[in-house]
């Protein structure tokens, strides 16, 4: 079976800085693929190119064997990708219910339809998505009143609830306490078992090594190695570039 994500010769330059150079890799369905690398290695640029929030200089991205490089970011997000951000983002003045309704809904952009539509009760779908991440909270609570950890879980629940083929998670355990870190690791394992394809960026090496099926190591905008956690740990190049050993 062909990989669900295929990236070939992807390149991006910012002025004189070659952020990504001829990056190629693939990700299999129902697997967790982790992208690691030191600061400035091009991980965030790669995520932004995958999500189409940045425009590539060259290269191709295929999701489910379809080229997606020409799609605008919101269309790609609507059809194929769910993502979370490094800096946890939330709608400050919307309730948890409204966050989840936004994630679940695909038809609410028409003003006329929305104007005459009756209020739908999608509590079951909302609770189902929140159960995935174990967020038990009053649905009418405002985003502004949530703790950092709850915000992390809510954004993860939104990403799961939204229609997608691949989950892009940008540092899902950055800044969280060990208990929540363990909880998020379990959620991701459960998602993988349910058939989710996950691509994540993470600095926490223990987290990555315990969870990922495949690791891609970036350094100075290039893929310097890809393989299983065991192979990565055995590579001298990786240890030197990333772990400093």
């Amino acid at each position, binding site marked *: 079976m062909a990989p669900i994500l295929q990236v070939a010769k992807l390149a991006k330059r910012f002025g004189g800085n070659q952020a990504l150079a001829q990056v190629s890799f693939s990700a299999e369905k129902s697997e967790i693929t982790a992208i690691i690398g030191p600061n400035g290695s091009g991980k965030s640029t790669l995520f932004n190119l995958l999500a189409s929030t940045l425009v590539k200089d060259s290269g191709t991205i295929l999701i489910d064997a379809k080229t997606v490089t020409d799609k605008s970011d*919101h269309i790609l997000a609507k059809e194929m990708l769910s993502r979370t951000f490094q800096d946890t983002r939330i709608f400050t003045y919307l309730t948890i219910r409204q966050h989840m309704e936004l*994630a679940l809904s695909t038809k*609410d952009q028409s*003003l006329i339809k929305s104007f005459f539509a009756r209020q739908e009760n999608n509590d079951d779908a909302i609770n189902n998505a929140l159960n995935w991440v174990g967020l038990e909270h009053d649905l009418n609570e405002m985003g502004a009143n949530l703790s950092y950890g709850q915000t992390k879980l809510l954004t993860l629940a939104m990403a799961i609830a939204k229609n997608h083929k691949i989950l892009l998670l940008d540092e899902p355990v950055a800044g969280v306490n060990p208990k929540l870190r363990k909880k998020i690791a379990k959620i991701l394992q459960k998602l993988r078992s349910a058939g989710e394809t996950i691509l994540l960026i993470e600095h926490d090496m223990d987290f990555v090594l315990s969870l990922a099926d495949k690791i891609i190591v970036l350094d100075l905008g290039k893929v310097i190695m890809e393989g299983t956690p065991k192979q990565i740990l055995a590579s001298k190049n990786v240890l030197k570039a990333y772990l400093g050993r």
Partner: protein
Amino acid sequence: MYYVLSLLTQIGIYAVIALSFNLALGFTGIINLSHISFLALGAYTTAILYTQFGMSFGVVMVLSGLLSGCVALFLIYACRKLRGDYLALGTLSFHFVIYSFIRNLETITGGTRGLIVDRPAFINDGINFFIMVVGLAVVFTFILARIVRSPFGTLLGAVRDDEKLARALGKDSQLLKVKAIVISAFITGVMGGVLAFFLRYVHPDFFFLYELVTILTIVIIGGLASLRGTLIATFIVLLIPEILRFVALPSSIIGPSRQILYSIILLLILLIHSRGILGKVDLH
């Protein structure tokens, strides 16, 4: 009696203008400082089409709204890459462009002489005019309330709070902003037409920047993203300066005092209670 009726009519007109401004600013997060130019476009369209071309009242009202809506569409397209303070500056410059046009395009707008506006016979009487304004205010308030409470309104809130996250959820934030600003401008354009009939005269100075201060004061005092707050604040903001009428001061002092009073109230609210009376959103 005439004084009270005239004051209440004015409150009705300003309430709708402020509500539509709140749709863009409070509910969608678009800092549109050219709101008064949409009012001016509506007023001048009405003055020209009704008085000079003799078109029917209904058609003139719709065209006043449509022209403002179309100009808003152009404005939001031109400013599509601007955010926050830069968008505020972009829209403010646009206001000056429209102001300069109506001031200098003498053959069409009458320039600094302004234009006389005839009133249709059925609203020539103050009571009938007031009833029409109340009717329009009820209809527009209902439409705006329905919009902000619908899923579409939630989407506008999402764009206001975090546009990047809204796009990551597959929402076309640019299209949503276009829709919000066009609705806001359409309603303001129609009310511009009503204002022209109310004043029976249009002049560029009616649409200078200090009118924006009045609308901004109403919205900030009432609170961002609160329709009820805006309605209450319209009464407060328009009634307070009326006290000055009963103070024995020369008109040369009373005139500017109104604007000074608004500016002081605005500053006090911003410093003491930035959410205003019923605001749901903080000023960023």
